[in-house]
């Protein structure tokens, strides 16, 4: 069945079953592979995208339920995104990198909602994003750094 999805400002029609996860449509049909598959059951966060600016696990979101505009890591922009990217770079957050597009999608979403998050706020927003390389401490440091850079 054909489903029309708005991804990164462009309209895409994908011919897949209604219960196909958005993640599969993004990666296999649309060809954007920045969003990763980790678990498929909303337990790891690797597949995080935004729908209408809100972080969503695309592995448990059937294409038939997607009404809003999807943003993936490839099209992330804005001052919070730039601040996070810069902090990630300076602090050298990623190790293998596999989880990182999900981490960045969640981190930027957090800063948009809460520009000055505490450690606790960061833990609550980010604990659904698992990192096999355990870069958690650097992620927290980098979110604080990004928040500080946005203050000026």
């Amino acid at each position, binding site marked *: 069945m054909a489903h029309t999805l708005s991804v990164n400002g462009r309209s895409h029609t994908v011919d897949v079953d209604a219960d196909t*996860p958005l993640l599969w449509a993004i990666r296999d049909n649309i060809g954007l592979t920045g969003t990763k598959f980790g678990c*498929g059951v909303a*337990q790891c966060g690797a597949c995080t995208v935004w729908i209408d600016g809100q972080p969503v696990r695309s592995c448990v979101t059937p294409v038939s339920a997607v009404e809003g505009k999807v943003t993936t890591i490839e099209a992330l922009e804005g001052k919070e995104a730039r601040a996070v990217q810069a902090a990630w770079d300076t602090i050298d957050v990623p190790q293998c990198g596999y989880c990182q597009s999900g981490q960045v999608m969640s981190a930027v979403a957090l800063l948009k909602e809460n520009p000055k998050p505490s450690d606790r706020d960061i833990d*609550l927003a980010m604990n659904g994003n698992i990192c096999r390389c355990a870069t958690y401490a650097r992620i927290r440091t980098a979110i604080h750094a990004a928040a500080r850079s946005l203050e000026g």
Partner: protein
Amino acid sequence: MLRQTALAAVAGLGLALAGTAITTAQTPTPPAGTLRPVESFQSIAQREARSAAIFTEMGKVLQHPRCVNCHPATERPRQTDAQRPHQPLVVRGKDGHGAPGMACSTCHGKENFDPARVPGDGHWALAPASMAWEGKTLGQICEQLKDPNRNGSRDMAALIKHVAEDSLVGWAWRPGPGRQPAPGTQDQFGALLKAWGETGAVCPR
């Protein structure tokens, strides 16, 4: 097919996930319970005793994992029939919809997504702290349910409507595979609540 892929991938993430999703997926669902029909309480002649007995029957639903899991004593919901703490860690947040960056809707859609066994509803949310049921006796839950200061300012008519028609309440009877539904049906539960109200809304002791 979907589920196999999902489980294989979970197994791949291995240590990081400590098998949480796997256990959920493989827990067999026990048979659903039933509720006694309202008429069956007619044999209790004394009105107050009848009312309390009806509420005790309602307790099968109110104290069921499908209900208590999201009426938790702490800010963190529970999940599964085993009622373990929600994985990942999520909290009630300001309005019952989670913390900034980790709202309920990050994972829970408008409907159950059975391939990954993630439940959903149009207004998936945690009950307010004033409506915590976990760890309470049925008598305490009963008093709490009647108290407009703790039940969302609902009178009996509003309570009945909420219980009989609310889609998230109704989810307890269609929780998707791997989760035992609440006993009986939403209609039966609504009828019991109504009968309880009509018999004076007496709380069991």
